[in-house]
């Protein structure tokens, strides 16, 4: 066994055959031995007729990967400077490890450097252009696949449809109810403060009913579904991509869009209007609660709400929900199918699905409102 009072040290001597680096004592990481640069400088400070370097060690020399990494750095340096580096006087195991480490001399080409600012801006412009083109291409593929489904020539697995309907319908009711009742109450409070100035509290019902049915019901439900279902679609398809399942579907002669996207899209499109009707009713109930606190009784509230909302209003809201459902499913599925194969890529795909879906929702909502306005509905 070695003594405890040993200490880390090295000597560098020069003789006719070259420079000798002699290591003594404890060189394990616990002893915090000198770095490779210190060893290199010490060796360089000696001169010898022969340029060779040799490393040797004392009997009490103790080592681990730390010293091996130092010696490896020296070996690399010597290799670059064309200096012979002789380790044959070191313990056998250390020699073997250094032999393994230095076996591959040729480093690979470095990975491509990150592009400069101009190139990045250009790439960003292109990516906006590309994503617009990709969106249109995907939309086209989905429309074709839906057409095939309607004509009964589709490969879509309809058994999946029921599963997805369950996933995005009944299982979303709780969260939709919670958000809707709160949105209804918010609308009621918002209106009540202003309307009470004119003694027209009863018109809170109009505000809540129209606000929910035409705007907040479809939009809030869509935002919930984008976060809940759109993200889930992206994560599912992204994981299938990394698991090579998408490849398998393609090589089995199936179309990923028909097989995977159509059932998901149909499920969402079928369920969304129902969820929106549910959200509208719950939102009205929330508004009614607030109104009841302001001396508008429930019968009055219902009566007023009924007179203010036409069937046309309900229809415009439901049409919106159909468009939103399609957009959420497309954003989610497109992000998932375009995902890379690593875990980070699946995460990015999920983020992209939600962000894209929400942008699509707001843009589509604005466009639809303009169109409704022009049509006078």
């Amino acid at each position, binding site marked *: 066994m070695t003594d405890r009072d040993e200490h880390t040290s090295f000597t560098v001597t020069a003789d006719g055959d070259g420079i000798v680096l002699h290591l003594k004592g404890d060189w394990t*990481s616990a002893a915090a031995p000198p*770095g*490779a*640069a210190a060893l290199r400088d010490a060796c360089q400070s000696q001169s010898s007729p022969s340029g060779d370097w040799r490393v040797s060690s004392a009997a009490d020399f103790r080592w*681990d*990967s*730390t010293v*091996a*990494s*130092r010696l*490896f*750095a020296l070996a*690399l340096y010597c290799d670059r400077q064309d200096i012979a580096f002789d380790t044959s006087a070191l313990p*056998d*195991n*250390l020699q*073997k*490890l250094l032999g*393994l*480490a*230095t*076996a*591959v*001399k*040729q*480093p*690979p080409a*470095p*990975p491509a450097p990150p592009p400069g600012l101009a190139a990045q801006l250009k790439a960003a412009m292109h990516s906006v252009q590309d994503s617009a083109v990709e969106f249109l291409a995907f939309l086209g593929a989905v429309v074709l696949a839906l057409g095939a489904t309607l004509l009964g020539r589709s490969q879509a697995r309809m058994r999946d449809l029921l599963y997805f309907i369950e996933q995005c319908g009944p299982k979303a009711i709780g969260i939709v109810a919670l958000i809707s009742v709160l949105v209804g109450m918010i609308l009621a409070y918002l209106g009540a403060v202003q309307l009470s100035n004119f003694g027209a509290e009863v018109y809170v019902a109009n505000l809540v009913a129209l606000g929910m049915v035409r705007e907040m019901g479809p939009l809030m439900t869509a935002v919930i579904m984008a976060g809940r279902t759109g993200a889930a679609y992206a994560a599912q398809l992204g994981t299938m991509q990394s698991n090579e399942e998408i490849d398998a579907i393609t090589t089995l002669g199936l179309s990923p869009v028909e097989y995977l996207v159509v059932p998901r899209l149909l499920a969402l499109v079928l369920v969304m209007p129902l969820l929106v009707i549910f959200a509208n009713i719950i939102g009205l109930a929330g508004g009614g609660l607030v109104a009841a606190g302001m001396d508008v009784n429930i019968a009055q509230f219902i009566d007023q709400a009924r007179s203010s909302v036409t069937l046309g209003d309900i229809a415009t809201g439901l049409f919106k929900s159909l468009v939103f459902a399609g957009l959420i499913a497309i954003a989610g599925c497109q992000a998932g199918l375009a995902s*890379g*194969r*690593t*875990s*980070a*890529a699946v995460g990015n795909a999920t983020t992209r699905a939600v962000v894209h879906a929400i942008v699509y929702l707001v843009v589509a909502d604005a466009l639809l409102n303009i169109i409704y306005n022009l049509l006078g509905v």
Partner: protein
Amino acid sequence: MATESVIEVRDLTMRYGSRLIQENLNFSVQRGDIFVIMGGSGCGKSTLLKHLIGLSVPARGQILVNGEDFFTASPDRQTAIRRNWGITYQRGGLFSDLTLAENVAVPLQQYTELSQAEMAELISYKLALVGLHGFEDYYPSELSGGMQKRAALARAIALDPELLFFDEPSAGLDPLSSRRLDELIVQLSESMGGTVVIVTHELASIFSIANNSVFLDAETRTQLDYGNPRELLYHSRYPLVRHFLSRGGTDNPPPGSPGDRP
């Protein structure tokens, strides 16, 4: 060399919920061993490894590592025990959002106080050991499967572990890459003085590197035999083990004949 158990498995029963995976496992791994856990597909090899590395809790029985039961140890002690383990997973388990250098740096940052320069030196050395000199700034996805496996090995040996675990190191590799990886495992474990536990059903690996093994049977759900695979091939009491090790034909010589190992 004095034999000393690094891992001792006593009367181990493993279950997933109510489903029995294996029961009555009894074996020990000695210091310096290259120990193989073998058996047919679905017999619970990987599950056994998950128990050995403390990811799954035994339904019954004990696993002693250096005489200590991992599962009853305090959380601090568990971390200290884990520091001495290096593990490579079936699919590598490299962090895909980190470069190779950052991957190897994770355990170093967790357990050591090295300076940036020292860490870079150590990382460069560890990557060179597995033949990936100069690949520091590559991401795992930019490498081939074999290189990913070796990079995972570099991360596993970052802290000079006494115990190395491998789950199917050669899965998905061609015979040459798989053989080079086997040789690397042997060379590293010999020169670092470590103990290696490998889950595999690659006969070539089993015969060329293992000096002890346990055979798990999917039918009876227990260990069928325990010993050096080269001896089990000819002398196992169980036809199933001889059959497995000779790839179904007892007459053929095994791939990688005895005495192959340096």
